[in-house]
C-alpha cells in the first residue's frame, strides 16, 4: 500500500534508504514514509495517516483530517432550529439518534423546556439502541480487519435486528431525524415492547457467540493486547471520553456524572479497563453492549404508558364516568385519552400522542396536525413555527449540553440571538480528540498494528470532520 514518494529528491532517498554510506563509511539507514489513506481499504472513513517507519516499527505519524468536511456548523446557521436535525443525523451516522438528542437538548436548554416523561424514556431507550449498533459496527469492522470475518457477519446481523426496530420507530435505518426540539416525532409503534425484547434476546445470543469467537482467541489477543496503548494521563490531556477513556481505567461517563433524560433512574455499571490498549477497548465495548441491553429492558419496564382506553388504575373508562370527571377539570387532566383508529397524519403523532411525546410549549413544538386543520389558533401557531423569518425562537443566550455518545462525550454549544435561526452551533465530537492523539498510540508499534488501533478508535468521518 506504499505510495511512491512524490519528488525526485525522495526517489533518490528511496534508493539509498536501505544501505548508504556515511562520511566514515558506516552503513546509514533512512526512515521510510508510508501513506495510509485517504482511501485505504482498511480505513473505514476517509483519513490520511502518514507514518514514518524504521523497518516495520512506527517512528512517527501525521494524521490529516478534513476529507469529509461538509460545513455542518455553517449550514446550521442558515436554516431554522429544527432544520438542523437532519444534519445532526449525519454526524455520527452509526448512532444518529444520540446526535438528535444532544442537539435538541441543547436548544431545549435555551428555552428551559423539559420534555414529558414518556418522551424522555423513549429517547433513553432509542439512544441505547443506537449505542449498541455503534459498538457492534466498531467491533465487527475491526475484527474483520484482523481476519475474523465471521464475527463481522454475526455482528452486522445483530445490528440489523436493531435497525429493524429503529426503522419501525423512526421510518429510516440511518438518517432517522427522530428527535425534535421539545419532543420526538412520533410515539412508539404498537407491539414495540415485544419486538424490542425479542431483538435484545437475539443480540445477546450473538454477542455470546462473538465472545466465544474472539475474547479468548489467541490470535485476536496477540494482535490486540498491549497495542495502541495510551495512559490515563495522556488520555485526559487529550480530553478523551467514552470507551477510549474508560479503557484506561478513568471512570467518566456523562450518563453517570451528569445524568440527563432518565439515566439517573437506570441501574447500570460503567465498565472500566486497566491497560488502555486495544484489547481493553474491545472488552469495554462488549460490556457496554450488555449494559445498554439492561438499560433498554429497564426502560421498557418503567416507561409510562401512552394513550390507552383505560384510566390510571387500568380500568376502562365508562362514558358516564367520563362526563362526571369532565365537570372537575383538575382530575380530567390525569386521564388518558381514547385512541383513534384512523390516522390522519403520521402514525404515532396524532393529537392524543402529543401530550406524551412532546412538550406543551407551543413556542417550540408544532401543534397536532388535526388541530391545525380544525382551528385557526393552531393553524397560526403552525405557520409561525415553519415560516421563513419566524420559526422556533429561543431567547437570547447560549447553552452547552453534553450527552454520552457511543464514542464519548458529544456536546452541542448553541448560541441564540433570539431569531429563528441558530446564531452558532458548535458540535464537540469525541472522535476529534482520538485522532489528535492517534500518533501517540501508534508510535512504537508495528505497521500492521496501525489498522487494529485505528479500528478501535472507531473514527466516524461525519463526526470528525463535521
Amino acid at each position, binding site marked *: 500500500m506504499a505510495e511512491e514518494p512524490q519528488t525526485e529528491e525522495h526517489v533518490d532517498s528511496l534508493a539509498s534508504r536501505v544501505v548508504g554510506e556515511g562520511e566514515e563509511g558506516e552503513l546509514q539507514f533512512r526512515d521510510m514514509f508510508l501513506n495510509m489513506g485517504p482511501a485505504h481499504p482498511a480505513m473505514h472513513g476517509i483519513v490520511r495517516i502518514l507514518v514514518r517507519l524504521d523497518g516495520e516499527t512506527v517512528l512517527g505519524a501525521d494524521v490529516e483530517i*478534513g476529507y469529509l*468536511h461538509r460545513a455542518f456548523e455553517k449550514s446550521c*446557521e442558515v436554516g431554522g432550529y429544527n432544520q438542523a436535525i437532519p444534519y445532526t443525523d449525519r454526524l455520527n451516522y452509526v448512532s444518529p439518534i444520540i446526535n438528535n438528542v444532544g442537539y435538541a437538548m441543547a436548544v431545549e436548554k435555551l428555552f428551559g423546556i423539559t420534555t414529558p416523561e414518556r418522551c424522555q424514556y423513549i429517547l433513553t431507550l432509542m439512544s441505547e439502541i443506537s449505542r449498541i449498533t455503534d459498538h457492534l459496527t466498531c467491533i465487527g469492522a475491526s475484527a474483520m480487519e484482523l481476519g475474523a470475518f465471521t464475527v463481522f457477519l454475526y455482528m452486522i446481523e445483530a445490528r440489523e435486528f436493531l435497525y429493524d426496530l429503529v426503522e419501525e420507530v423512526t421510518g429510516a435505518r440511518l438518517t432517522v431525524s427522530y428527535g425534535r426540539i421539545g419532543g420526538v416525532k412520533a410515539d412508539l409503534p404498537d407491539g414495540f415492547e415485544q419486538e424490542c425484547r425479542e431483538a435484545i434476546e437475539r443480540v445477546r445470543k450473538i454477542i455470546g457467540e462473538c465472545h466465544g469467537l474472539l475474547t479468548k482467541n489467541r490470535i485476536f489477543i496477540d494482535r490486540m493486547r498491549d497495542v495502541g496503548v495510551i495512559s490515563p494521563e495522556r488520555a*485526559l*490531556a487529550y480530553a478523551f471520553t467514552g470507551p477510549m477513556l474508560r479503557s484506561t481505567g478513568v471512570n467518566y461517563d456523562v450518563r453517570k456524572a451528569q445524568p440527563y433524560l432518565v439515566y439517573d433512574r437506570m441501574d447500570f455499571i460503567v465498565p472500566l479497563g486497566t491497560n488502555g490498549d486495544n484489547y481493553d477497548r474491545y472488552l469495554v465495548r462488549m460490556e457496554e453492549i450488555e449494559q445498554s441491553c439492561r438499560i433498554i429492558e429497564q426502560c421498557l419496564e418503567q416507561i409510562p404508558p401512552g394513550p390507552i382506553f383505560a384510566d390510571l388504575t387500568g380500568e376502562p373508562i365508562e362514558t358516564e364516568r367520563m362526563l362526571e370527571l369532565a365537570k372537575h377539570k383538575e382530575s380530567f387532566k390525569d386521564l388518558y385519552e381514547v385512541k383513534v383508529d384512523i390516522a390522519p397524519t403520521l402514525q404515532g403523532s396524532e393529537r392524543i400522542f402529543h401530550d406524551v411525546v412532546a412538550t406543551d410549549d407551543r413556542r417550540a413544538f408544532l401543534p397536532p396536525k388535526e388541530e391545525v386543520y380544525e382551528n385557526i389558533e393552531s393553524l397560526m401557531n403552525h405557520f409561525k413555527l415553519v415560516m421563513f423569518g419566524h420559526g422556533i425562537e429561543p431567547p437570547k443566550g447560549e447553552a*452547552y449540553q453534553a450527552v454520552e455518545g457511543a464514542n464519548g462525550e458529544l456536546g452541542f454549544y448553541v*448560541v441564540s440571538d433570539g431569531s429563528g435561526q441558530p446564531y452558532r452551533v458548535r458540535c464537540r465530537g469525541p472522535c476529534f480528540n482520538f485522532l*489528535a492523539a492517534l500518533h501517540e498510540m501508534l508510535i512504537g508499534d508495528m505497521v500492521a498494528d496501525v489498522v487494529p488501533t485505528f479500528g478501535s478508535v472507531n473514527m466516524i468521518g461525519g463526526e470528525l470532520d463535521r
Partner: protein
Amino acid sequence: MSQPSVTLQLLQERFASVIREVHSLHGDDTVVVEPGANLEVLQFCRDEPRLAYNVLVDLTCVDYLDYPDREGQPRFEVVYHLYSLEHNHRVRIKCPVAAEDPTVATVVELWPIADWLEREAWDMFGVNFAGHPDMRRILMYEEFEGHPLRKDYSISRRQPLVGPKN
C-alpha cells in the same frame, strides 16, 4: 438567585480585575475575561486544587459580527469549555478578541488537545493563537482562501477545487 458556584466565587476573588462578567445562564457557569487574560485564568483553573479543571472539553470561537446589540464590543469570542473530573463540574471561559488583531495566547502548554482545537479555530475563524507550534489548516485545504465560519463569509461562496499537485 442561588449562590454562585465555587468556581465563580474563586475566580472572582482571584481575578477581580480581569473578569468582565460572570453569569450562570441555564446553569452553565460562565466567565468572560479581559482579552489577554485567558492563559492565566485557565492555568489557575487547571492548577487550583479546589477547581481542578483537568479536561479541556472544547475550544471554539464565535463571530459576533451580526449579533444584535453588541456595537463597540470585540467581534470574536474564543470559548473554552472545561470539565473537572475530580469535582464533576464544568465552566465556560470566554475571551473576547478584537477584529483588528485577532490574537490570543495559545493553551497548548496546558492541554495538548488545544493543538488541534486551535488549528480548527484558526482555520474556521482566522483567530491567531500566539505561540502555537504548528499552525496549519486542519479541515480545509491549504489553498483555501478565507475563514468559512466568519459571518462575512457567504455560505453560497464557492472556491475552485484544487486537484493533486503531481
